[in-house]
């Protein structure tokens, strides 16, 4: 987690000093100086103009990049960061037959799976130069081989996770401006784009990502707030590793491996193989009970999962062995794992229902608790809208059953506890039929583990509006004469709100593609010239600018900086600027 402490040492420093801090061998120097005076007048070869005006839309994640042209329905290239791309040019050993069996020497001395990540969210000790190099190579490969573009400068739209630390954003911008000469880069928020690509203006976006799961409330195209937990893909992989290791050992010992070196033993499995198993074989159990609303619809208050296809054994009780051939351990081995066991990594990684809520730190809250807390902290009207627009995105959302499990768990909590942050009315009624761990979890809530907002204070002591999240919650909904007017309009349809509902999105990349094509102003747009002159230091915090402009964090007019180039201080990094 890129906590404030991690960033505290970095604000208001030049990129070069960030780099120097990260890696002393890197020669520090003013990043503002362009590599070479490359003029923007690149010769245009006659005729060979591929969509000259279509900006390139890039969605950045820790594990994957999505690239394509604005206006396309799908990215042209999805890059999975892999160690193969981090070898020297001309090193063709990847193609040798025994390459994969020699994974131990490649994995040695690095954090587990580090070669599969573009970056860590904790920027401390991270060589940002390496991040830039990795990114550059992947972008070059994707742009030239898959998008078939030439080197002419192109506008770029970046679709970014809300929690991206500034140094990483800065590295990304450096790479695009210096190495690809983009004239302008627009920044869009990935949860907002997820909502946009679902056809809605508000949503609660649950991004089941790699380093962390983020829950972001989007209201009228604004990121209201983000909450996060480490219960995400990486943790799931750890659990998968343990599951497989135990299977290889024949369930002899339950010891867990803590050290990276311990993962290089003969019986150890490679990250690549764990991930292969995780993406192919894992599934997720249903909630211990179905939420009432659902069951009442079906007419039957089923207690445990005796559902749909009656004859079939419920998956949780299916212990039939699933044969999986593992090649990365020495010697290769075919293990047989009971089908029911393949649901365990998800339990441990995302839910951990065996432990009481009070035993979790804020950054490791189980996903369903995090979602519930997020909703709880939202103002009443925002919550009502967002809860009916729950969107799942991120790599882990493809695990069978995971989305419905989270949805059901949240539904159950809402049923049991209502929306009272201290103690729900509903909780009184349900007390009797509650399970023990639920009881204790409610206890924890009562004991004042008041939900903590992870997103840093947006205004930083400017005295202005540190919007409390719950203030409007008790404001009664008043009848609005404007609304009556609206009703008369033909186009009007009442907004769906007030109950939990999951909706489907085409994904943040598609949202970015659509938004860019429709020329919707981005959260922030940065001009190359200004970046080269000023670097990340030149960016004002959005709050400063916005207060001057009388509006906050608006996705809106004037793109926050373009057209204001005369006042070079008035440009921002959008919401990412608040990460300082």
């Amino acid at each position: 987690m890129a906590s404030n402490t991690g960033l505290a040492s970095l604000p208001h420093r030049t990129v070069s000093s960030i780099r120097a801090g990260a890696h002393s061998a890197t020669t520090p120097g003013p990043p503002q100086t362009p590599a070479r005076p490359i003029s923007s007048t690149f010769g245009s070869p006659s005729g060979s103009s591929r969509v000259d005006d279509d900006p390139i839309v890039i969605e950045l994640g820790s594990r994957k990049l999505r690239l394509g042209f604005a206006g396309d329905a799908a990215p042209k290239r999805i890059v999975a960061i892999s160690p193969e791309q981090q070898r020297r040019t001309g090193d063709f050993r990847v193609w040798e037959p025994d390459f994969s069996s020699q994974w131990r020497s490649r994995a040695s001395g690095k954090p587990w799976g580090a070669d599969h990540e573009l970056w860590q969210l904790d920027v401390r000790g991270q060589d940002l130069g390496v991040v830039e190099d990795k990114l550059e190579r992947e972008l070059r490969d994707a742009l030239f081989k898959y998008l078939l573009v030439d080197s002419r400068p192109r506008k770029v739209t970046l679709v970014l996770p809300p929690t991206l630390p500034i140094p990483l954003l800065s590295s990304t911008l450096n790479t695009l401006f210096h190495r690809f000469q983009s004239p302008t880069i627009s920044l869009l928020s990935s949860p907002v784009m997820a909502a946009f690509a679902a056809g809605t203006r508000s949503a609660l976006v649950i991004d089941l990502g790699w380093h962390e799961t983020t829950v972001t409330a989007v209201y009228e195209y604004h990121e209201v707030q983000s909450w996060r937990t480490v219960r995400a893909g990486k943790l799931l992989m750890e659990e998968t590793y343990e599951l497989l290791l135990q299977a290889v050992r024949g369930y002899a010992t339950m010891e867990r491996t803590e050290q990276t070196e311990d993962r290089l033993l003969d019986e150890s499995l490679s990250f690549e193989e764990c991930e292969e198993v995780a993406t192919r074989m894992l599934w997720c159990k249903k909630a211990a009970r179905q939420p009432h609303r659902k069951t009442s619809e079906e007419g039957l208050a089923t207690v445990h999962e005796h559902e749909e296809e009656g004859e079939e054994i419920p998956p949780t009780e299916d212990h039939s062995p699933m044969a999986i051939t593992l090649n990365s351990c020495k010697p290769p081995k075919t293990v047989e794992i009971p089908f029911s066991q393949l649901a365990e990594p998800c339990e441990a990684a995302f839910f951990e229902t065996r432990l009481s809520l009070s035993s979790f730190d804020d950054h490791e809250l189980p996903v369903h608790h995090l979602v519930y807390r997020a909703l709880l902290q939202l103002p009443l009207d925002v919550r009502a809208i967002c809860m009916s627009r729950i969107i799942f995105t991120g790599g882990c959302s493809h695990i069978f059953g995971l989305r419905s499990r989270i949805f059901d768990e949240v539904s159950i909590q809402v049923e049991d506890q209502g929306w009272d942050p201290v103690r729900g009315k509903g909780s009184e009624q349900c007390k009797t039929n509650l399970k023990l761990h639920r009881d204790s979890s409610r206890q924890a809530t009562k004991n004042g583990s008041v939900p903590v907002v992870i997103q840093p204070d947006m205004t930083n002591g400017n005295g202005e509006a540190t919007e409390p999240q719950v203030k409007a919650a008790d404001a009664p909904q008043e009848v609005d004469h404007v609304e009556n007017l609206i009703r008369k309009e033909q186009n009007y349809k009442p907004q769906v709100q007030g109950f939990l509902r999951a909706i489907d999105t085409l994904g943040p990349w598609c949202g970015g593609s659509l938004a860019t094509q429709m020329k919707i102003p981005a959260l922030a747009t940065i001009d190359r010239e200004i970046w080269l002159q000023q670097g990340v230091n030149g960016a004002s915090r959005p709050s400063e600018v916005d207060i001057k402009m009388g509006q906050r964090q608006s996705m809106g007019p004037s793109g926050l900086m373009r057209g204001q180039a005369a006042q070079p201080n008035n440009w921002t990094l959008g919401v990412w600027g608040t990460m300082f």
Partner: protein
Amino acid sequence: MASFTPYTYIQCPCHDSTSQSRTADDAPPPTTTLPELSENDDDHAFDPRAHRSTFSLYPLEHLLYCDVCHQIRCPRCVTEELVTIYCPNCLFEVGTSSLKTEGNRLTSDYLHLNKSLTAANRTLTLDAHVAVSNARYVSAPWPSKLSKPPPDPTLLSADSATPIPPGPWVLTCSYCHWNSSEIGVKFDKPQGIFGQLQKLRYGEDQSKHVVSGDTSPTKTDSVPETNKARFAALKSFYGSQTVGANPGAGLSGLGDYGLNSPGALTRIMSIYSGNINGLKPKTKSSVMREADSPNEGFQLSDLDEGAAISQLRRDGWDGTVTGDQAKTQVEEGAQFADQLWPIPYLLRAKRSKRCPVCRHIISKPESKVSNTRWRIRLIANNSIPSISIKPLNPPPGSGLLKPLQPAHFLLTFKNPLFDDVKVTLATPATTPGRFASRVTVLCPEFQIDANPDNDMYLDDVLKDGEKERQRRRGDEGIHQAEAGKIWERGRNWVSIIVEVIPSSLRIEPPPAILVKDGDPEPDLSPLREDEDVLEIPMFVRLEWESEASHDQVGAATSREKDAKEKRELAYWCAIGIGRISQE
């Protein structure tokens, strides 16, 4: 492990130029003054094993050279232009304009196939430009051929003159004999394969969803099922909302729903700007609503994945899509083997390359796809000396270097230039990294004579001159493993000796007596990939005088108004000498 081929990697001087202030076009590289390479000062030392070095090291053959700027150019520091885009399977040339409509894969292959039919009149003319990635054979997309399902080779090998037999057609893989009828894919005609595939996959003609800019009711009636169709529906929905919201700004412009003026949606998006508390929609915005029906691109999530879990149980490991298969699919999201689809070939491009500084073309291929030659290709091989490495006395047995035992290697520098070159070498006394081997270059400064190959007529003259010069230098006596002396000299090459004392590869904590307070924790992790390779970082500086070129950009280096101009080029390289034995 036993076989090891010595190698040389060159670090392009453009590396990390973002953090080095270099402004003038052909200013000498940042390291004109030799860095002090003592053991104590490793600030500037180049570590070829550092993670970043991976991205800036290239074999000599991968480098180009701008002969105007006199600088090495690597793939990262050239600008590229498209010359020809083609299908690598059948060499069909694709117009760059059709890329916009077809994307990076050949999709409408109707024309394409017909062309193939007439161009090559033998068996494989019905190449469908579709590679098949099936459940069992994944590693490489084997080219597959379109053939009639019953084994009827005569028909297939018939001339193009023979009328095309009626269908059905299937895709077959000549490598594994898989054919697409296994996944129920058959074609009525051997043309328009991609279109037919789409139809088979989605059951209807998808093109009608893709039509953009049209919000007529007939289109919105159909429920989009593919992402592409949903995308179009969403786009059309947003378009209609914008029009409704502001009829004035509506369709005044052409295309793009009149959104050429960024004002329209800007306003909509910003209507709710400001405080989220007590937020009330304003009248103007209210007409813009959210999508709420499938034909507007809206879709509820189907959270019930019970069927998928059942399939996972039933089909097991082999029924799921491998990571490699998933990566090669065009569309994201296949999880079971039966969701895999044949994939069209990825198009490729021929490119010309320019020096980004002086904008001269330094590499230009023949534009015809079938012609693999180059019109212009300034490879670095022709401009900077190559370095070859061999052991002075080939080590017996394994060929591995023995730890702590001195070994001598011959480095031969060959000069491709038509001018004499002065070479200055510098290496750190010990190699960087966990295992510090000692390195001594016996003769770090020497001159290599010009490459005479250009002019046979002058050959004899030069030869005489060469001998004369050698005599003058007094290094005619060859084969001396002595400091300051070269080992051997040829017409345009020089061999020198490097002595190495390989480090032991034992991983153990340093003796306690040497550990100071505040020292970083010793790295005791197991041997990493190639950490046993003795790799010498070597800084090479070349100085020579050559004909002044008149079209030179900013020839600042010329001191005298002589015809000769002094030139200088310096770079790091990594020289892989051999593997150290792990005994």
